[in-house]
């Protein structure tokens, strides 16, 4: 059973809200909704900007798990056994074994005169099984010109757009891009001491550097180019089945001895530290912006409740006069504040999860380095609602307390 003061306070609050001006109530709730959106959306967009990048990195490059060579090895030794092990794990949906080397790609070499600067760019060159790679990263959907590689597309290459001046017009001393290259152009790729000519079959464009600053070849041809005949690969990207836990699968692989020859990481493990730092920094920035919104909302509620209590000072005096304890009246104002905060947060919640999150998922914000989404984890949102309610309750309680502690008779008679 609730204490008497709480029950009577609730009774008074309900009656007051029910008879309050619709405009005033709407205005206060409107402020609460905006504050809630400010609390959740500002930091959500900031974090989403990086989260979008992380999600793309996972989807288009690492997969859910990434297996790479040990730091003191140049490739994953004993790869065939490891690939056989991957086939036995039920949580794994697909995987793509990659051969990765650094090299260069040169264009327009046929027409180049002796004095001309070579049209050449340094790049990662990756040998892939086109079908397997597509099943893990779906990169075929990012071919913006030409077409994706087939299993027998020897002497053909997919070029990342960041290697082409047409898509990445950057003039920088340390960064060269290829000019005048399109689908069908002949290019020369050099890896180690081997130089071979290829035809550009397609151009890939994503916001993930690892894809867009890369040249993709069919793995069987690339193996012969780099002289790798033992079946060992450089990297394996693994896509898990939905609901599978990457950390659990990583641990399964490690328990099976996969870490003897390779480094097994979840996509989170493989994230560069600077990304994690940026997320933390943006969270901090979002919290700073949000706290300003919170203060503004608290002041608004304070003013509204203060004006309400001032204009009702006589009735507060009457209530005290007929024996209603000041605590009851304070509680009634606290309930009113809770009402405004909860209704405002409820509408805000519906807007965030019913409208904004799905909208930004469908229409990401086009940032140069990522497709920004709105990140609003439920636990953090609940924490922000609690923060908003607590701030509002304090902001509503203080003015009520200030008015209620005034002399009862002075309040009834309207004396200062």
């Amino acid at each position, binding site marked *: 059973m609730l204490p008497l003061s709480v029950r009577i306070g609730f009774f008074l609050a309900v009656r007051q809200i029910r008879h309050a001006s619709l405009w005033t109530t709407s205005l206060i709730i409107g402020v609460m909704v905006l504050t809630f959106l400010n609390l959740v959306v500002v930091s959500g967009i900031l974090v989403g900007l990086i989260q979008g990048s992380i999600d793309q990195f996972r989807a288009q490059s690492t997969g859910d798990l990434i297996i790479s060579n040990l730091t003191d090895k140049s490739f994953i030794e004993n790869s065939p056994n490891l690939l056989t092990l991957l086939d036995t794990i039920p949580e794994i949906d697909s995987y793509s074994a990659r051969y990765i080397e650094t090299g260069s790609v040169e264009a327009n070499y046929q027409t180049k005169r002796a004095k001309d600067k070579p049209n050449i760019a340094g790049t990662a060159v990756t040998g892939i099984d086109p079908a397997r790679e597509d099943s893990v990263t779906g990169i075929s959907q990012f071919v913006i010109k030409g077409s994706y590689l087939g299993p027998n597309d020897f002497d053909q290459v997919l070029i990342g757009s960041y290697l082409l001046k047409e898509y990445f017009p950057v003039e920088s001393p340390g960064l060269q891009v290829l000019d005048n290259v399109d689908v069908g152009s002949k290019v020369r790729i050099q890896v180690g001491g081997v130089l071979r000519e290829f035809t550009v079959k397609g151009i890939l464009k994503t916001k993930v550097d690892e894809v867009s600053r890369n040249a993709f070849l069919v793995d069987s041809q690339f193996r012969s180019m780099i002289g790798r005949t033992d079946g060992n690969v450089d990297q394996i990207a693994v896509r898990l089945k939905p609901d599978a836990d990457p950390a659990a699968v990583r641990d399964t692989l490690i328990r099976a001895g996969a870490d003897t020859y390779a480094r097994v990481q979840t996509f989170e493990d493989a994230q560069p530290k600077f990304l994690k730092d940026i997320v933390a920094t943006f969270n901090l920035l979002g919290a700073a912006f949000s706290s300003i919104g919170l203060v503004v909302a608290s002041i608004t509620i304070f003013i509204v409740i203060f004006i309400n209590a001032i204009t009702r000072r006589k009735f507060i005096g009457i209530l005290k*006069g007929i024996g209603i304890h000041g605590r009851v009246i304070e509680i009634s104002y606290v309930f009113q504040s809770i009402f405004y905060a909860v209704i405002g947060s409820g509408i805000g919640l519906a807007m965030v999860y019913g409208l904004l999150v799905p909208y930004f998922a469908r229409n990401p914000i086009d940032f140069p380095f990522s497709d920004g989404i709105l990140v609003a984890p439920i636990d953090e949102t609940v924490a922000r609602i609690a923060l908003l309610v607590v701030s509002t309750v304090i902001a509503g309680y203080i003015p009520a307390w200030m008015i209620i502690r005034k002399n009862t008779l002075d309040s009834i008679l309207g004396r200062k």
Partner: protein
Amino acid sequence: MIVTKNLIRTFVTGDIVTQVLKGIDFESKDGDFIAIMGRSGAGKSTFMYQLSLLDSPTDGTITIDGVDTHTMPESKRVEFRLTYFGYVFQDYALLPELTALENVALPLLMQGKKRAKAYKEATTALERMGLGHRPNNLPSQLSGGEQQRVSIARAVAHKPKVLFADEPTANLDNESSEAVMQIFKELNEEGQTIIMVTHEEVYARRAKRLIVIDDGRIKSEEKLHHKH
């Protein structure tokens, strides 16, 4: 029984000190019906606020049924007002967002009565005031006389020891004023102690005792006899 001894109330505004009550000795017995009169500023309302514990004296004592209220903390005074007293104000002092029934039931609920019981007693009080047919009306939907009767219903629903009325007929027409005074008469005949401040002698003379206050002191006291 309320007893005051040497009751003094002084107001200080900046450098100006105004002594409104200058040492009042007074006694009321259970079942009294006392009218307090006086010219404007004489101190009659201030005196009633002291008796009803809405204000505290600067000096002197107020004893209610043997309890010295001088040292009583505000929380205790609130409880005292809730259980011992009922109030009727000049401007009715009803809460605008509560219906007539809710206004009357509020002190009963505050006393810890169950909702059903409180509403039943409030309904009885309203019926007694001739307002049994308008329990769900807001004050703004009632006439001045009806509001004052709701106010009286609120004041007596919990059966207080003393009913204080501050100029209860001041805002009412003759008909409504007569109705209010008739209710007071009936309540007093049933044993309700009533202390009423009024500036209207015709209504003051309906009481059993008439006290005239002038310049912060009791100037005269008269026992009134009525034919029943």
